[in-house]
């Protein structure tokens, strides 16, 4: 009996028929590849699967029965299935699984796959493929799924032999969830689905080229601890990697140990509760002034599972110019990709921080903690002077979208899972909701996928029902533009019993694009008016969201005044047997502030039109800063560096 050499255990299409492969693996239960696929998912502990059937995946769907151990959620569009699996994965921390058909089914999945890849969401996408005799012949609904998905996946498989199915699924599930999580595509040819094989479990994985590092090296931890000792203005810049690693407690411990402020990226909102005084909120393009300012002025930037995205850094050369950098990431390729760190630490965030916290405690036991009072005075002055603020009154008497978001947050249960689409509403949600729990904020960060919201909310609601007995309500905050990209999933939400609550901030325009048109394109509002909402005598608007909700058997409510809005939210919070949609009529020219224009230095951050506190070096508390008991040299050095950057900026 000859076992296959490990690396060749499955090659793609077999070049010559091998006579031995069938006979070598006689252990196990005889079944078809399709049966094995379902059985493998069950054995992997998969409890919920999203998807849509189709011709090339029918043998697999034929094996889904009433006694199958996972719940199948039938979506209405493959993109919806993918985003739902993403929302499920983020809410529960488990791998999201989708089963779709070949060709158009698989190509519809490319957007969620790319989205999951950017945000490191663990996803296993199983797609059908035509039989191997038809591969490469332009057969009906054939697409080179593996080829298409290469650039946007963690890994892709083409399975042509039934015997490979359980092992490939075990590998795919492991790859998706381990190391830096990501999407894995398993393209299963019809030949493999109908072929016979011998099923056994567990499977031995063959992954010689895959060895993710999770444990940090000792000496970099000591160097990192030393940098903390030498720094007087540290900032913890926390990203989605900390969320994926479930490192909220560790981040909080590090912040408390070192008295450092916490700024977060969009995906990391809520990693430490917003009520914690150390949390300054989101930084970057639409971050809080305090968070962006603190990062620009810091002398130690600790990037924790964050990747220096351009929406965070603005112009890279001018980002945190005086700071030394500690970069903690599980993916070595992220280290030095955008900024060279002084101390690189490769490893799982939670494990690294556990070790780093221990190291810092050891140092502090000997030398004591650094006094950061001047730094906090400066930060608090920013916080007091530039809070997150907006106009509650709007010129045309419609609702203020920011007020709606705050009101939603005020009335929501603390356990609420918040989901958003992409656009202005997403930024307001991130800025104004009080996040008290990690894994309670689901949004498309890296790819910025409009239409992400509704299906992701459905996925999160399925996850909530699975893990929390449905106790965690799911609120979706969406824009009228974003919502219409996947509004067909209202059907899935109703029929598959995912009673999400939907708040549409309806301004009848593509708000974020309109904001850019206002600021950078001479108010030429080219193709951003989408005319949806209520019909009046003069204009016909489509769709009427209330009627749309009712068409899908959901509850639809419209709110045009604050009293209506309060009542609508209250009513929505009471309904739990079906989805509720509230169409909030909001002011179309409301803008997201603060803002850093794309490609500009974060020093140019505009708090509100005409107010650029960092550009004019408006560090109100600089007197107390230099008069403090920290070494004079350090402060002077930083001040010079900051001044130089501001001068450089103003020349541009």
């Amino acid at each position: 009996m000859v076992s296959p050499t490990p690396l060749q255990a499955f090659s793609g299409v077999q070049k010559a028929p091998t006579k031995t492969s069938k006979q070598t693996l006689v252990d196990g239960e005889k079944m078809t590849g399709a049966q094995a696929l379902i059985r493998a998912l069950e054995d992997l502990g998969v409890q919920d699967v999203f998807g849509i059937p189709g011709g090339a995946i029918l043998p697999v769907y034929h094996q889904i029965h009433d006694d199958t151990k996972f719940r199948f959620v039938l979506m209405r569009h493959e993109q919806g299935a993918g985003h739902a699996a993403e929302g499920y994965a983020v809410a529960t921390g488990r791998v999201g699984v989708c089963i779709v058909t070949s060709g158009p089914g698989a190509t519809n999945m490319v957007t969620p796959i790319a989205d999951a890849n950017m945000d490191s969401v663990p996803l296993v996408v199983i797609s059908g493929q035509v039989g191997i005799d038809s591969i490469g012949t332009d057969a009906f609904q054939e697409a080179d799924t593996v080829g298409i998905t290469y650039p946007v996946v963690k890994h892709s498989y083409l399975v042509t032999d039934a015997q490979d199915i359980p092992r490939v699924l075990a590998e795919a599930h492991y790859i998706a969830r381990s190391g830096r999580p990501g999407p894995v595509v398993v393209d299963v040819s019809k030949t493999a689905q109908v072929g016979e094989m011998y099923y056994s479990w567990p499977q031995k994985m063959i992954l010689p080229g895959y060895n993710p590092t999770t444990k940090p090296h000792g000496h970099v931890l000591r160097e990192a601890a030393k940098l903390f000792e030498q720094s007087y203005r540290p900032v913890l810049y926390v990203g989605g990697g900390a969320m994926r690693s479930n490192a909220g407690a560790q981040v909080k411990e590090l912040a408390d140990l070192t008295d450092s402020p916490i700024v977060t990226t969009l995906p990391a909102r809520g990693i430490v509760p917003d009520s914690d005084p150390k949390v300054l909120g989101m930084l970057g393009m639409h971050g809080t002034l305090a968070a962006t300012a603190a990062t620009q002025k810091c002398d130690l930037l600790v990037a924790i599972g964050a990747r220096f995205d351009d929406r965070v850094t603005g112009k890279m050369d001018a980002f945190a110019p005086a700071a030394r950098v500690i970069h903690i990431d599980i993916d070595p390729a992220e280290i030095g990709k955008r900024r060279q760190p002084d101390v690189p630490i490769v490893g799982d965030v939670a494990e690294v921080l556990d070790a780093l916290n221990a190291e810092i405690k050891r140092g502090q036991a000997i030398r004591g903690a650094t006094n950061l009072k001047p730094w906090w005075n400066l930060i608090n002055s920013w916080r007091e002077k530039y809070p997150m603020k907006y106009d509650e009154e709007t010129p045309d008497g419609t609702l203020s979208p920011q007020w709606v978001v705050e009101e939603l947050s005020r009335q929501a249960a603390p356990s609420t899972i918040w989901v958003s689409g992409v656009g202005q509403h997403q930024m307001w949600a991130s800025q104004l909701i009080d996040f008290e729990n990690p894994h309670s904020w689901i949004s498309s960060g890296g790819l910025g996928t409009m239409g992400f919201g509704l299906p992701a909310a459905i996925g999160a609601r399925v996850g909530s029902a699975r893990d929390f007995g449905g106790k965690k309500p799911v609120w979706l905050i969406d824009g009228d533009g974003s919502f219409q990209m996947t509004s067909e999933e209202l059907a899935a939400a109703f029929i598959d019993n995912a009673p999400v609550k939907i708040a549409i901030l309806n301004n009848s325009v593509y708000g974020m694009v309109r904001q850019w048109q206002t600021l950078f394109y001479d108010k030429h509002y080219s193709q951003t008016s989408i005319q949806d909402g209520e019909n009046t005598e003069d204009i016909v608007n489509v769709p009427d969201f209330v009627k749309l909700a009712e068409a899908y058997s959901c509850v639809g409510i419209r709110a045009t005044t604050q009293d209506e809005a309060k009542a609508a939210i209250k009513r929505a919070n009471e309904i739990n047997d079906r989805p509720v949609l509230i169409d909030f009529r909001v002011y179309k020219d409301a803008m997201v502030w603060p803002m850093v224009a794309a490609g500009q230095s974060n020093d140019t951050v505009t708090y509100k039109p005409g107010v650029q506190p960092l550009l004019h070096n408006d560090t109100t508390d600089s007197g107390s800063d230099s008069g403090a008991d920290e070494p004079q040299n350090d402060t002077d050095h930083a001040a010079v560096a900051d001044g130089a950057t501001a001068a450089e900026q103003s020349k541009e």
Partner: protein
Amino acid sequence: MAIYPASTPHSERHTLSVLVENRPGVLARIAGLFARRAFNINSLSVSPTERPDISRVTVTADVEQVPLEQIIKQLNKLLHVLKIVDLDNTDAVERELVLIKVAANETNRSDVLEIVRLFRVRVVDVHPESLTIEATGAEGKIDALLGLLHDYGIIELVRSGAVAVTRGPHALSEKVVGSEIRGR
């Protein structure tokens, strides 16, 4: 940090040796990574190695140090990639095979043959109007030969792309986890 495109006319030449699993589609994944970053490949050769389960890709490219480090890290993330080394020119042997079809008739044939003899390369095909020369060597030697033959008129030319191994008794694949090299 990010430098785009990765290759500029004045970038230094690097030779990457990449050990990969020998299976379909691997080269496309690797090539895709290079292409996306505007990484101008000078030569690329792929073939099986002393182990049938492992193939070796040799890439030479003129590229800046920073994007090179990034692409090595990105290559390392591919599951099919087992080992990557940026070969040091002083500690590696690098060779390339070239076939050159030179326009040579009875009047200048002996001159061409003199060059062939000087460079210790071989003639593999003779025709009244042409000579086809097989040459092997490091890049400098091949370039010098081509420079001399240029005046006679090069009709056709094909280069195999560089292949390279480190000096000394060790194999790159020894460091591959689960390595099973025998009878070396």
